[in-house]
């Protein structure tokens, strides 16, 4: 009995971590380059920022619901959950990447250009290192939110710690709810602490 619960906690925590890990990896791979595009092409700003802001305003349960009937990307299960989580995590990462790049001292960028840096060198050697702290801050916010939002994945068969919470709510069983909520909160605190440490390590310019 006791060990069944422990096993469930371990298994669902693992599922939860992999949902969050995969979603965050994809969100970073998409969000940082999109943030760079937005910083470099003001014309794209309205569209990309507008679009991702709209996604952010959709209640998460509703977003899962909307995705289910969409062919190829929708349906019940992990894939739909990951798509929704990526969409949610995108805005803070995209926005912080672009804000971080734009807030680099223009005198520094000008002198980099005047010294003959190519666009790529300017980005890699100057803008991204100086924006790193802000970008990590965006990733930190997105990660903590995603850990919480991922509990709703259970509603559409995505697994994770939400399974406990939904089961607990359905059977009015506080112990079950806590079995899901406590590990989720612990993961969120650890992620917040770890990324916060990384953010402080990247010395302010």
């Amino acid at each position, binding site marked *: 009995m006791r060990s069944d619960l422990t096993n469930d906690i371990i298994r669902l925590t693992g599922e939860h971590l992999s949902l969050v890990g995969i979603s965050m990896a994809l969100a970073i791979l998409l969000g940082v380059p999109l943030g760079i595009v937005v910083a470099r092409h003001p014309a794209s700003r309205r569209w990309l920022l507008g679009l991702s802001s709209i996604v952010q305003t959709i209640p998460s349960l509703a977003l899962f619901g909307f995705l289910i009937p969409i062919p190829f990307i929708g349906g019940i299960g992990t894939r739909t959950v990951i798509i929704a989580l990526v969409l949610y995590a995108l805005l803070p990462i995209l926005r912080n990447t672009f804000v971080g790049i734009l807030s680099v*001292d223009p*005198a*520094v*960028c*000008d*002198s*980099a*250009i*005047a*010294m*003959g*840096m*190519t666009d790529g*060198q300017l980005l890699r*050697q*100057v803008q991204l*290192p*100086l924006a790193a702290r802000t970008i990590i801050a965006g990733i930190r916010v997105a990660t903590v939110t995603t850990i919480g939002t991922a509990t709703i994945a259970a509603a559409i068969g995505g697994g994770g710690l939400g399974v406990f919470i939904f089961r607990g709510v359905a059977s009015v069983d506080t112990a079950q709810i806590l079995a899901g909520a406590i590990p989720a909160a612990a993961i969120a605190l650890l992620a917040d602490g770890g990324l916060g440490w990384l953010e402080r390590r990247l*010395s302010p*310019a």
Partner: protein
Amino acid sequence: MPLVEFRNVSYDIAGKRILSDFNLSVEAGETLVLLGRSGSGKSTALKLTNGMLFPTEGQVLVEGQSTREWDPIKLKRHIGYVIQDVGLFPHFNVARNIGLVPRLEGWIEADIERRVNHLLDKVGMPASEFRTRQPRELSGGQRQRVGVARALAADPPLLLFDEPFGALDPVTRLELQKQFLELHRDFKKTSIFVTHDVREAIRLGSRIALLVRGTVEIVSNPAEFQLAHGGEARAFLACL
């Protein structure tokens, strides 16, 4: 052949004429000071020289070749540039800042190190003490010295100075002006130096070009300049 030549250059931005029918030659070895009020087009002239901007009409020739025909990256690395806010990279230490262009140009590390140490000594900042400092640990004057060393690093034939000492206190400014003259004597570089300070123009320039609303009013050596009669020249000389 002049090192830099502006031929009937006009430059417009957003329909506003910044430079009009601008003609000027810079000879190898001289320090040409561009003197003028804010908005007279001095900084624009510098940016047209290293290909940060291109003329709307006319052409700017560097070593006889139009800036439009130069490889833009090559042209910029061929010309040292010092700006007022210095623009040192806050995440690079002093040595990495100075060694930047040589590194972009693919020099070997030992040569970069030797060059950086030499230049730090030349600008009066002992390498042993300052190499590993961060820009934020330096005073305004020291940052400006590092900026000058950085501009000299890849041994460019031409240096551009955009009001480099404008934000410094008068004592530090005088020290840096003296150092500028020493460096000019030691390295024999051609310089174009932008300022709105007539004393600085007279102290540093081998020739002074007075800019008024985007055109060159007079070009003369400092001694002649002090006898000039034009309205704008008198206005500047009244500041002495």
